[in-house]
């Protein structure tokens, strides 16, 4: 057997300033203007916090349509509007790809915005602060939404990741390692949720939940995405007590348990917010709006290779328990019935 090798970090292959300057032409950014300004259309609450608490930071990771920025006061993500809003996102109209920016480029926070290496100015003055939309729903509308979703998902959920936990395929289809690890964990989580929602007795989730942290393929591992979906629904359903219980068990494991980008999204979910696409999908399920489900499922399925599906699976796991125990749901005051 030949040894596996390790590649360190998430980075762009471009690393020199000269390459960076040459690359500006042909990427949609102007080659004649000294400073390019991008006006942010929306900014998430975590991003507001990160910028408000910092003067200086760096570009931590570079992708075509997004940049992860690390500050002393936290992280945020500069994204093209087509990727949607979110708690850590600063959405801008992008004239071209962002992979011309180099990793570790300095970021200077100024009044109502920031500069990346003195040439790319992101203005946040006219950005609306994005917060997760809340909808009115009832146990009945939720049951309708879930019933309409399953036929759309059964044949389309990917074979990788964790979505097959909630939409199983043929038993002849071999399960991946991550699925084998996750199945008993999710089973015990369902039991815990059911007990919490039926009896409302405060209790911590099973310790095995930490096995989901950092589990599986992807820049944001499938297990993390699953947890994000689960936390999004608990927040939307007003069960902040359960979010706090999950927080207490998994937060101590995040630093070592997963990568910085995934940790950022998990931390935002623990604070009650996830991506706009996930919230729109969950809201369509909560309100039983089956006319919206197909199009929102398309948007979800476009997130990463299986990330969107994994987070949807986590959300649906909780929604199914909520639907079974909707008397408990009504007690929290978000129910429209």
């Amino acid at each position: 057997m030949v040894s596996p090798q390790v590649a360190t970090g998430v980075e762009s292959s471009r690393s020199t300033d000269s390459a960076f300057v040459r690359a500006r032409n042909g990427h949609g950014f102007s080659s004649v203007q000294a400073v390019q300004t991008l006006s942010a259309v929306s900014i998430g609450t975590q991003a507001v916090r990160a910028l408000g608490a910092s003067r200086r930071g760096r570009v931590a990771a570079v992708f075509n349509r997004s940049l992860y920025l690390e500050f002393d006061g936290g992280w945020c993500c500069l994204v093209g509007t087509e990727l949607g809003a979110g708690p850590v996102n600063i959405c801008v109209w992008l004239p071209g790809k962002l992979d011309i920016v180099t990793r570790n480029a300095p970021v200077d926070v100024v009044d109502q915005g920031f500069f990346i290496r003195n040439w790319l100015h992101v203005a946040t003055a006219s950005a609306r602060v994005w917060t997760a939309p809340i909808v009115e729903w009832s146990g009945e509308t939720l049951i309708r939404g879930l019933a309409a979703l399953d036929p759309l998902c059964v044949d389309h959920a990917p074979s990788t990741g964790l979505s097959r936990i909630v939409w199983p395929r043929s038993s002849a289809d071999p399960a991946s390692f991550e699925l084998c690890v996750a199945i008993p964990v999710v089973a015990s989580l369902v039991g815990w949720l059911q007990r919490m929602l039926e009896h409302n007795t405060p209790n911590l989730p099973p310790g095995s939940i930490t096995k989901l942290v950092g589990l599986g393929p992807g820049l944001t591992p499938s297990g993390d995405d699953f947890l994000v979906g689960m936390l999004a629904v608990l927040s939307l359903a007003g069960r902040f007590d359960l979010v706090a219980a999950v927080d207490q068990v998994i937060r101590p494991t995040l630093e070592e348990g997963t990568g910085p980008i995934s940790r950022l999204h998990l931390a935002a979910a623990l604070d009650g917010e996830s991506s706009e696409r996930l919230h729109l999908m969950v809201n369509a399920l909560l309100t039983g709006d089956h006319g919206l489900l197909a199009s929102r499922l398309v948007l979800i399925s476009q997130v990463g290779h299986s990330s969107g599906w994994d987070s949807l699976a986590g959300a649906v796991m909780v929604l199914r328990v909520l639907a079974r125990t909707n008397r408990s749901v009504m007690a929290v005051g978000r129910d429209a019935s």
Partner: protein
Amino acid sequence: MQVSRTVAALPGVEDAALMMGTPANQEILENSDLLVPDGESAGGGDLIVAIRAEDETAATAAMDQAVLLLDQPVAVRAASAAVQPRTLRSALRVEPNTNLALISVPGDFAAAEARKALRAGLHVMIFSDNVSLDDEIALKLEARQRELLVMGPDCGTAILGGTPLAFANCVPMGDIGIIGASGTGIQEVSCLIAQAGAGISHAIGVGGRDMSDEVGGISTLTSLEWLDADPKTRHIVLLSKMPSAAVIERISAELDRSRKSFTVCFLGADDLPLPANAVVARTLRAAAASASGFHEDTSGGTGLAWPLAGKRKWVRGFFSGGSLAAEAQVIFLDQGVRVASNAPIQGAHALNEVTAGHTLLDLGDDQYTRGRPHPMIDPAVRDEPLRQALGDPTVGAVLLDIVIGYGASEDPAAHVAQVLGRYGNRDPVVIASVTGTEEDPQVLSRQVSTLDSAGVWVRPSNAAAAEAALACIAA
């Protein structure tokens, strides 16, 4: 994950995985016999490329390939973009002379894509629905400033310079321009004009809300200005349900400034404050006749009508086109016959449930299409109500519209014929019209022939079909 699969399939490779180096993933790799000390030292932000191979040569080749795939994602994407552009930007690189973007994405994101297109200097046709009114107004104002046109949202039909877009028919080029807030309205009028031997210069859809008070007819007015300036357009037809008074006033002022002639069809309206160069048409058929000069036969085939047996006295209409349902209502009301609809025009009754009386349903309405395709794409939407009507002893006539052309079902007439196949008798009588042309993929005459063989009484226009239904119940 795609890289994992590609590398694992290489010759001599026994197993491969590319995963973030989290403790959970290290455990998975260890269980798969893919973890060695190098990998154990990885952190959550590191990517582990783990390959188990038959020999070192195969492993090195696989690792080289993995690094190549990871390092050149842009090149891979660029190659596939040459076949199928996935963004507006890449599409413009492939076709730099493009001047129009057709947006068909989920409604939540349509406004963002449309705005990008406008800022790239493109006219925009928004096929998507579920775009907010605020977004529609903002987009149309921005387009106006940039001297561009926004067609839609929810714009299903256009024919620009002879090119049909979305749901449209293959009609000849000619000197008649159409501006319509209704897709099937444009289709019916353009097809009747084509059947009369005339042709279309451009047919511009503006979206169902354009002539509302809120939007103020922004795209209608822009289209009027452009068709007025187009030397190939002699006569202009304007189609819509009844707009607001303020919009009518603006349109009237625009018509008054023009030297061209106009036909204005605000379905069912006949008393409009319009200048002398505009003729008012109450129906789509009247609009096509006015524009192309053909004689409008309003007899409805009275002499051919079947006398109905016993208690069969009601008409049930099942339409895939909203404007066709509206036009049928106009015909009924003009003959003093009470009618109800789920999309009632002025004078018709609102319908909550099919019980008794004449009912004309728009099956393309949201209540029937939520979560399923539009009946023009999937004619099965009509099956259940059609079966109920065929089995109802009080129903004397069933009215159907068959809309063909690009985007529509491959053979809608065959579908109807299949449903009717179980009903051997001719009560109730089934009456239909086909909106289409011989050049359409489904071929007008083939559709008529299929319906005819199934015992359907096919009339030459939607208005004529409605008149035939009324003739039957009067016989």
